[in-house]
């Protein structure tokens, strides 16, 4: 789960990390009021969960409350890299002397937590690594012992930190690691970390936490709603469906993430556009799961055809068929289905569907390979 900048900043603040003064606005008038409280000169930042917000026009400076209002009215409701802006963060404009980078990530290859910092900032870490690899400092630490103070000191001295700034940076690294470990972060980042005459400020904030560990941090659950912009994705999560909206017109249902992604790839390859990713996961023994999944995919009005690709190892095919029929009975749209159903009792499952087709005239096409299924689905989507 990825937190918004304003959410991550509140957590940073609680842990003693300095952030610019500011507040979230959901209307242009709110933005004006906040800018007024902050003395007029502010930065207005779109709260969307995509990288490269600044370059995409999502971060703008305002010299007066009126200008802040004007910027907010343009940003709110607009799309930044496909993400709708529902909130803007209005912050005091800092007097920036220099920009640094400070981050933390779980290195999945080394299987260790890692602190990363650089005295060059203001660009994303990938670009930084490509342009100034020698200026990136990394501290790997043992997940059992935690980060030792000497490790921070050693690397900060190596990077040329000294005096008050050394002390402040030392404490900041410790605070950021505290946040990361407390919330079981996959990644947390301050970029840029801004140097002002009053010290180091987190001008931006990223905090991505491990979804599998959220049960240990129920307080994060309340933040989640605001991080899901897509209504269908939000609904899917509440129902326990692993669904991502992609935006095309060929709906996809598969059991297994790899199988679902391969299905998406093939739809693309055949010249079509997948509407979604959906991995049913296990548990298809109960027809209700399949019913829920199909109903959910059909809620996306762009969907013109659905490709159901089930490789039933443990699952019995008649249960899958039952789920499909239950869903079709509930949904009022006539959308053709392409079905690849393989596994235990596949003949029984297919017969059930064929009988349903005869009775109701629904269009269900059976295929034997994913390639044929993708071709058929793309063709049907074009016809509609």
């Amino acid at each position, binding site marked *: 789960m990825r937190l918004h900048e304003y959410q991550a900043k509140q957590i940073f603040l609680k842990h003693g990390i300095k952030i610019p003064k500011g507040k979230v606005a959901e209307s242009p008038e709110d933005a004006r009021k906040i800018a007024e409280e902050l003395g007029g000169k502010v930065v207005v930042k779109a709260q969307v969960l*995509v*990288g490269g917000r600044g370059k995409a026009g999502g971060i703008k400076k305002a010299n007066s409350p009126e200008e802040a209002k004007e910027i907010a009215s343009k940003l709110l409701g607009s799309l930044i890299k496909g993400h709708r802006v529902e909130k803007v963060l209005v912050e005091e404009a800092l007097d920036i002397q220099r920009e640094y980078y400070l981050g933390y990530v*779980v290195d*999945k*290859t080394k*299987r*260790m*937590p890692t602190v990363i910092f650089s005295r060059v900032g203001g660009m994303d870490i990938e670009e930084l690594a490509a342009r100034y690899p020698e200026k990136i400092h990394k501290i790997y630490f*043992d*997940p*059992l012992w935690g980060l030792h103070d000497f490790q921070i000191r050693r690397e900060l001295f190596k990077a040329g930190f000294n005096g008050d700034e050394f002390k402040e940076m030392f404490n900041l690294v410790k605070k950021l690691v505290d946040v990361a*470990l407390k919330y*079981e972060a*996959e990644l947390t980042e301050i970029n840029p970390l801004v140097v002002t005459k009053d010290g180091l400020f987190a001008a931006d904030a990223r905090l991505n936490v*491990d*979804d*599998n*560990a959220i*049960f*240990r941090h129920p307080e994060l659950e309340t933040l989640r709603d605001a991080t899901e912009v897509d209504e269908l994705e939000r609904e899917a999560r509440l129902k326990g469906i*692993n669904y*991502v909206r*992609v935006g095309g017109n060929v709906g996809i249902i*598969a*059991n*297994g*993430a*790899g*199988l*679902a*992604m*391969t299905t*998406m*790839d093939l*739809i*693309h*390859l055949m010249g079509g556009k*997948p509407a979604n*990713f959906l*991995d049913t996961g296990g548990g298809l023994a109960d027809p209700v799961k399949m019913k829920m999944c199909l109903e959910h995919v059909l809620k996306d009005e762009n969907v013109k055809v659905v490709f159901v690709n089930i*490789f039933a*190892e*443990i699952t019995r095919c008649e249960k899958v068929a039952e789920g499909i029929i239950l869903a079709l009975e509930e949904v009022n749209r006539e959308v053709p289905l392409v079905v690849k159903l*393989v*596994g235990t009792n596949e003949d029984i499952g297919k017969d059930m569907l064929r009988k349903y087709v005869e009775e109701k005239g629904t269009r269900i096409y059976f295929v034997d390979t*994913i390639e044929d299924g993708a071709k058929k689905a793309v063709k049907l989507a074009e016809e509609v």
Partner: protein
Amino acid sequence: MAILVNEDTKVIVQGITGFQGSFQTKRMIDYGTKVVGGVSPGKAGTEVHGVPVFNTVQDAVEETDAKTSIIYVPARFATDAIFEAFDAGLDLVVCVTEGIPLYDEMKIHRKLREVKSKLLGPNCPGVISPGKSKVGLLPDRCFMPGNLGIVSRSGTLTYQIAENLTKAGIGQSTVVGIGGDPMPGLTFVDILKMFEEDDETKAVVLVGEIGGTAEEEAAKFIKKMSKPVVAFIAGRTAPPGKRMGQVARNRKHHQRKRLRRRRKSCISVRQ
């Protein structure tokens, strides 16, 4: 020969009295796997499908002399089950459980440095040496004995690919699902090494997914291998920045770079 498991492998099932554990125990026995014991705290003295149940892994190991275990325990308790298996000195621990927290997995890996056990998974379908033994939940009918090794991050996608191969008359020495988690125990490289040394394996198929750098590490190793490797990566058209199920978060430029690197390694990439 095959790798990891063969006809002599004795297996204990951790979580044998649970729904999945019991169901899969039956299927493994039906396949011919030597399931010699099960573990379920407080249920010692009972039987599941004729298999004796023990309170602890240690008891099961002392009684049966098994060197392999498979874990069917819910995510919140699976880390403890893995540590218990390590403590009992098992050679191979297969963990099917999905959803183990990242920080638990880091601790598991830290422990792996100190113990002799190997971990397959978590979040994996297990391993099958067709005609010999199955430790996991892979569907029997997709496989047949032969000389192709398969190593994969996916579940159902692997079954699909294996079934196509079997239908085409290409049998397998061993099929290994390393699991979809970002930090698997045994990695692509570990398994490729085993296949390289296995007499029965003549060629290898690698099934990867977008996300992470496991496929890049594998590509580097494959350059040094004498046996031919065919690779497939799912998710090349997935949108950047979105989480697709298990782990994958696509970064387009990484994906292209990986494909390029793979081409350089002279591995055929099926797109």
